[in-house]
């Protein structure tokens, strides 16, 4: 999607789906799916941070796991380091196939009797896709794609010393002898701002911030190219959060890491990331460069999300869009546009047809019927350019 000539792409996800089966009934048969992630596509480039925003239960965490293949995906592909021309080809292929062919070009069954486009896709997938690699190839890749977890308390084994925790990836990949590993652990601890003597302690002796540092050190151990940051600061205090964020930024500048920064906290995302992807109920509703998104959010959900953020300044009084109701369950997502049940600008079409991703200006994509229909969309977008809270009028 994003063809702007810039850093090479580390991971390119295309139509990634993850459905969790629901079992029920007399013989606990398969009665439905929780559509945690539903045909999501995104690129993550070297040295840049992609923010992934959404409320709880929108599938952002699952997406992070699936991208690293910690969970096996239902369908779709995640290409590791595709060259730009491959990317271009991919986009053309997918556009030719239409968006919802993720299932047929699945990781599981290589399309046997399928149109040439699919065959081509398969070849590319066999070459680049994570989901086509066998366990050993995957294990070699693990070191380069790392993850930092949300909860700093359950993410460190209570019975291992910090030294063992941080050195574990090294041990797994048999890098260096014990002494070298200890040296490496020391420098890692320094990188995340911990003292050497900390390596002789148990995790439970540390505060949340320090634990999170340890987690980051573990992730850095194998010199990764990309780290999925799964709400790394949502369990921390603001002052400590700032420390962690700064550390992450510094590391990115030093080592040119790519981050996928998952968070429900828009302001943190804004502080961290270059591009932002907004998810709602397993679908991407809007993706744009950070400034673009925050200056002119197009999707009503994004607008509501933005206006819902409390601003630490009693003097600024803004009119806020308060969404009615709760997030529907991903087990039974609403028909058509999944947001239409809560949308302030809902139109009759929304409940019927699912909106396509449409480009609105410099790699700013939004999936909303306000913008899909050209004439209406034009007015709507120009409206929502001016005022965030105007979305309802845009509908009428």
């Amino acid at each position, binding site marked *: 999607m994003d063809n702007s000539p810039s850093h090479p792409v580390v991971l390119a996800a295309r139509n990634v789906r993850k459905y969790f089966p629901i079992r029920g009934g007399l013989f606990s048969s398969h009665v439905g799916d929780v559509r945690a992630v539903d045909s999501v596509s995104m690129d993550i480039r070297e040295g840049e941070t992609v923010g992934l925003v959404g409320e709880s239960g929108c599938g952002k965490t699952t997406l992070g796991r699936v991208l690293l293949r910690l969970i096996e995906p239902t369908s779709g592909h995640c290409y590791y380091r595709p060259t730009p021309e491959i990317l271009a080809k991919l986009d053309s292929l997918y556009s030719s196939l239409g968006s919802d062919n993720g299932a047929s070009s699945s990781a599981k069954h290589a399309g046997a009797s399928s149109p040439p486009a699919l065959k081509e896709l398969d070849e590319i997938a066999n070459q680049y896709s994570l989901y086509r690699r066998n366990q050993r190839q995957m294990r070699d890749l693990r070191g380069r794609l790392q993850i930092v977890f949300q909860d700093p308390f359950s993410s460190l084994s209570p019975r291992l010393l910090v030294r063992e925790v941080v050195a574990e990836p090294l041990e797994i990949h048999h890098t260096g002898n014990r002494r070298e590993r*200890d040296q490496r652990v020391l420098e890692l601890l320094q990188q995340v701002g911990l003292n050497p003597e900390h390596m002789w302690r148990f995790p439970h002796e540390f505060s949340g911030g320090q634990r999170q540092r340890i987690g980051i050190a573990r992730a850095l151990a194998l010199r990764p190219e990309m780290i999925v940051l799964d709400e790394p600061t949502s369990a921390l205090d603001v002052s400590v959060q700032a420390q962690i964020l700064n550390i992450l930024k510094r590391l990115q500048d030093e080592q040119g890491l790519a981050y996928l920064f998952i968070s429900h906290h828009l302001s943190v995302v804004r502080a961290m990331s270059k591009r932002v992807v907004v998810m709602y109920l397993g679908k991407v509703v809007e993706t744009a460069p950070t400034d673009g998104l925050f200056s002119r959010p197009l999707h009503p959900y994004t607008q509501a999300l933005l206006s819902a953020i409390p601003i630490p300044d009693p003097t600024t009084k803004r009119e806020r869009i308060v969404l009615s109701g709760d997030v529907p369950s991903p087990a039974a997502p609403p028909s058509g546009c999944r947001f239409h049940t809560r949308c302030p600008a809902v139109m009759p079409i929304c409940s019927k047809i699912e909106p396509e991703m449409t480009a609105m200006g410099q790699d700013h994509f939004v999936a909303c019927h306000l913008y899909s229909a050209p004439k209406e969309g034009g007015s709507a977008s120009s409206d929502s350019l001016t005022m965030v809270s105007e979305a309802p009028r845009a509908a009428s």
Partner: protein
Amino acid sequence: MVEEELPAQAIEKPVRRGRRPSPRWDQFRRTWYFFRRNTLAMIGLGILIFFVALFITSFIYPANSTELIPYEATNGAAPSPNPIFPQVCTYQPGEVPPAPNCYLTPTGLPSVIAPTVALSPATLGPLPFGSLTLNPTEPIFYNTFDGLIKGAQWSITISVGVVVSGAILGIFLGVVAGFYGGAVDEVIMRLTDIFLSIPGLLLVIIVLAVFAGSITSTWDRVFLVIGAFVVVWWPTYARIVRSQVLVVREQRYVEAAKASGARGGRILRKHIMPNSIYPVFVQMSLDVGTVPLLIAAIVFIGFHVFPILNFPEWGTITAFSVQGAVLYSFIEACQSSITNTCIFPWWQFFFPGLTLFLFAISVSFFADGLRDALDPRLRR
């Protein structure tokens, strides 16, 4: 306290491989602190230590370790005045008995004059202290003191053997079930359901009943008994371990290990095992006490677990002495037309019963204290 000493020891500790870092010791001390605060647990620990000592002494104690020795009776005495409490008397072999009904214990330990009781309308005879009668028709009095001491080796060996082997089997199956899940899990859990729904006592009985006929040598029989009990015990452990593994498997640190490419074996070894095995220890220490109890019960309902009836194993001794006391002394005495004063022959089953009771209760006190000390929620 932790805050104080850790940096110190960490700094003086060279950042090289090798030594046990003292945090582990600190954790142990923490557990011990909470254990120590639990009075009952400390009592249990004390009694347990006594039993360990008994176990060791039982090997050097000069008595027959494979069967109980009958008393040599010097018989023919008048009924002693007091019906309930026997009087102590000691004499060495060769000496003249100081009192008519004095019994010589083979090891020269103090023996006693027991009150005389009507055995049957015909014969009069005494009941020595700590005796075990096997069948009402012609009484033989065995020395249960030596038996209890010697029985320590058998009982404790059997109990520990049962629990350890059962735990090994159970842990293995439980971990497999919990970690791999799916069909394996289903099969193993159904299996545990099946075994758990058969009352344990009966399961042991039927296994023993089928095979006991063909196995007569003492050691083989001991192994058979252990096997029979393991059949009963593994499912409990499997259940416990599985539930723990299911919890630990979902922890983030396991996922982190996966994320850095750890294989299943390593995750099991490094993360899942150490974090999910503690409850089993508690359960094990609870069960050690129940094995002799079960053996005693089986013997009591009339099934002879061991090839010889006067086998020095706590359960057996207790069961037989209770039977003897009730069926033989008590009922006979109460219902005999000669003496219609019932006597309560407590000295016959008191010491075997006490041994069983103390063993079981000390172990369970210990286990309970251990659980409280290990489980942060139950700490105080």
